[in-house]
């Protein structure tokens, strides 16, 4: 009897310690501490505009059904296995957007996935890639967003299944899959390669679509850039490594052309979610598209997941 009671007490204690441990470890400040931004030079709005295009922010944050892609009222519904996310208003509106935010708030959101209220943000917002942008770049981007028109109105709240509707759960996810560190250039590689690697992995967040994801929605590292099912469950995203199934036969110029006009070497024109990516990347200088092509041509060939066979007619 006594033994049983002791066992029970021990179990409860363990559970409490386990929970406390989980609680501490998943604290936004513990798992994804606020990046040190230090003193920053005056913001370069032009650079911010470039990063805004490279990052495709309008693809998710522009209110759907309006022609003006610079009105960031949010509202786009993003389907996922965890429920539906609604992209929030990130226009500089002081009540409904991010008009009251400081640079540190913005850097925390973009590089650590933490909101000003100290809560985790969901990785359906691809800060997993954007975190590669250093604080200076993020401050430029923030300065640019502040030049855009404020838009009134909040987007609908997310509609997520339990337990994903609890933001704290994202802390566990971050423990497993998130590393908060900016881009580190490889000094052995050319300047163009490094620029390309930064644009593709950071603001461009190309791997967020061009990779397979696990059951928890994290990119499977061995399939990075090797394609997979569309994260929103519609169709297939192609392999863009140097595999025969990917871009092995594409020249650098052909990759840069696709990123500018959407035309493949066989003069097909990319559609689906890639069309908006092209519209945004087309805003970048040609040298940046060539740098991205240079980096993509250096990716090792990965076969990637098997594409499902087309059904017989």
């Amino acid at each position, binding site marked *: 009897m006594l033994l049983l009671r002791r066992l029970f007490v021990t179990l409860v204690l363990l559970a409490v310690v386990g929970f406390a441990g989980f609680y501490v470890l998943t604290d936004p400040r513990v798992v994804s501490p606020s990046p040190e931004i230090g003193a920053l030079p005056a913001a370069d709005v032009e650079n911010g505009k470039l990063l805004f295009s490279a990052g495709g922010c309008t693809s998710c944050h522009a209110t759907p059904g309006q022609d003006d892609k610079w009105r960031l009222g949010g509202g786009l519904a993003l389907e996922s296995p965890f429920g539906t996310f609604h992209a929030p208003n990130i226009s500089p509106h002081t009540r409904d957007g991010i008009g009251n935010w400081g640079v540190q708030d913005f850097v925390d959101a973009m590089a650590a996935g933490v909101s000003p209220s100290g809560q985790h943000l969901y990785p359906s917002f691809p800060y997993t890639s954007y975190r590669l942008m250093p604080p200076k770049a993020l401050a430029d981007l923030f300065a640019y967003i502040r030049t855009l028109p404020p838009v009134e109105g909040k987007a609908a709240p997310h509609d997520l299944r339990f337990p994903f509707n609890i933001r704290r759960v994202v802390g566990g996810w971050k423990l497993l899959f998130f590393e908060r560190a900016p881009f580190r250039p490889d000094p052995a590689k050319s300047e163009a390669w490094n620029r390309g690697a930064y644009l593709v992995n950071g603001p461009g967040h190309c791997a967020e679509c061009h990779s397979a994801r696990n059951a928890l929605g994290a990119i499977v590292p061995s399939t990075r850039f090797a394609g997979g099912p*569309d994260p929103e469950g*519609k*169709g*297939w*995203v*192609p392999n863009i490594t140097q595999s025969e199934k990917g871009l092995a036969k594409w020249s650098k110029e052909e990759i840069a052309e696709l990123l500018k*006009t*959407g*035309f493949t070497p*066989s*003069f*097909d*024109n*990319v*559609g*689906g979610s890639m*069309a*908006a990516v*092209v*519209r945004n990347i087309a805003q970048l200088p040609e040298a940046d598209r060539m740098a991205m092509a240079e980096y993509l041509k250096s990716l090792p060939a990965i076969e990637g997941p098997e594409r*499902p066979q*087309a*059904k*017989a*007619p």
Partner: protein
Amino acid sequence: MIRTALVLAGLGLGLTAVMAQSNPIAERQQTMKAVGAATREGAAMAKGDAAFDATKAQAVFKTYADAAKKMPTLFPDSSKTGGETTAAPKIWEDQAGFKAAFAKFETDASAGATVANLDGFRTAFGAATKNCGTCHEAYRIKK
């Protein structure tokens, strides 16, 4: 003998037509491939990789206009899936929008029907090829 051959040939022709009709997926993909091939020629001229030739330039727009007329008839309900089709379900959910997109493509293509110089060609070609990505974005999905 000759008559038999003619009849057979006639039957053969009829048969191909029927086959094409009964395989709208293959036919629309063939039509779009021709649009792709015309675009390759057009792009070479627009970039200056090939010499401008008014006859060839006008042929590009004719291919576009013909395709724009024919395409909307090649999406019967029975062809939503099958083959290697990349047609998105939205085509059947929004028939009006899909047809309007081809009507716009046809209008933009007919603006180039009589181009006579490189500048005019570049403008018309640029306007017509804007339609490719816009339509593929909404109505096409790789599977």
